[in-house]
């Protein structure tokens, strides 16, 4: 029933150190095809780094990454990243390109689509996020919420099997958060496989299928949202929840 060609994603025993700083200390994370996993935890717990390791923006020191059950560590990392869309806290739209060019760039240069076809597909994606009318604007002339929706369209245009969201609403003004979260919820309902690093506990609780609580580079607790939010078992999670809720 999925609108997307999504796949499952698994990180197994992922380790990463920067010098003596052991950022990830054996992380296991599994996202079932078509489901949403949210990752919560205090700042500096390694959540954002985990995303970057799982699409190999940073190579793990140890461990394995499986997409649809197959290890992708030996694949070309650029090709792997074409299969995993990513949305950033700071949007990271390309300011020297128009909105539609932001979305069509990868279609033209990586998918090798002819310009008109790439533009048509990009416009379709922009329509999906409600910003077709901004196609020829520059990112700088858009609000933060609009920019983030363009960034989501840019990632979706590549028809990824998995989507990563790295604190996608943290840089937004409060009144703009809702629109972006609604769009993310929409994708989740549509059957996209998603890993969502977030500080939005409401989203984590209501939209995700599993919640993973990270602290100090390890997974402290994970499970379905009811369990994590209503019945936290570890003291660390209880403490974190009482701080943020």
């Amino acid at each position, binding site marked *: 029933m999925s609108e997307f060609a999504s796949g499952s994603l698994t990180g197994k025993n992922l380790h990463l150190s920067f010098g003596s700083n052991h950022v990830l200390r054996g992380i296991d994370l599994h996202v079932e095809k078509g489901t949403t996993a949210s990752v919560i935890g205090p700042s500096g717990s390694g959540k954002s780094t985990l995303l970057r390791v799982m699409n190999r923006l940073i190579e793990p020191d140890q461990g394995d990454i499986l997409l649809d059950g197959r290890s992708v560590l030996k694949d070309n990392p650029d090709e792997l990243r074409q299969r995993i869309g990513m949305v*950033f806290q700071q949007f990271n739209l390309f300011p020297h390109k128009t909105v539609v060019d932001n979305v069509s760039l990868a279609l033209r240069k990586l998918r090798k689509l002819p310009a008109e076809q790439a533009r048509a597909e990009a416009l379709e994606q922009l329509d999906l996020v*409600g*910003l077709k009318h901004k196609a020829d604007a520059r990112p*700088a002339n858009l609000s933060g919420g609009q920019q983030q929706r363009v960034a989501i369209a840019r990632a979706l245009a590549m028809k990824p099997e998995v989507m990563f969201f790295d604190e996608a609403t943290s840089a937004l003004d409060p009144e703009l958060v809702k629109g972006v979260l609604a769009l993310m919820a929409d994708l989740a309902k549509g059957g996209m496989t998603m890993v969502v690093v977030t500080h939005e506990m409401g989203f984590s609780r209501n939209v995700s299928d599993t919640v993973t609580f990270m602290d100090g580079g390890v997974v402290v607790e994970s499970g379905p949202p009811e369990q994590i939010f209503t019945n936290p078992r570890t003291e660390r999670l209880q403490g974190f929840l009482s701080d943020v809720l």
Partner: protein
Amino acid sequence: MDALDQLVKTFFDWEAMAAVLPNMIRFGLPNTLILAVSSGVLGCILGMVLAVMGTSRITALRWLSRIYTDVFRGVPAIVVILLIGLGLGPVVRVTTGSTNPFPLAIFALTLMAAAYIGEIFRSGIQSVEKGQLEASRALGFSYGSSMRLVVIPQGIRRVLPALVNQFITLIKDSSLIYLLGLITSQREIFRIGNDAAALTGNLSPLVAAAFMYLILTVPLTHLVNYIDKRLRTGRPEKQQPDDAAALIGKGAQP
């Protein structure tokens, strides 16, 4: 009054200036522009290579770029022109039979300009937020494609003013080619002014040369200011409220 007349005569003898003007326009101006533009273009190409090397993840390339830049930025232009022009001149003459000093002068100016332009490009590239490279790589672009399509175009834009300044320097430094010996039709602005001044014992032709340089450089200086202002203020027009946020498709009721 005699002293003042003498001074005016020395610097602003209009007849002496007018006499030198045809040669200035016919030979001086185009030759100066040929030197400055060709070494500017070549310097940009070599400078970009140096900048990409200087921001590379490979240590050896960074070092190579560093050493080159330190050497050619640290040596006076006159030394480089003399060493290249006089050192390679005979070799070129023997192998090609050409005695034209222009290629070697352009080569020398290029080598120096590249060191400065490389630094300008490098600072521009490094001023682009890390997230830009990250976003491009996350889409699946290789490091090289990301630099070419995303990072470098933004970096260049930010350093356009510095680049124009460098071109102004090239226009002025091109005068040093006179050291290599020029035949009549090869003379550029300075040499024409200087020759006429030496011939007449009056400095006015040299002042005319100065005016010619100013005609070239002053508009460029203002172009720099204009670009600088555009880059600073020209971008954001008007922030639109996020009116569509609540209306989007099926996501309106999560």
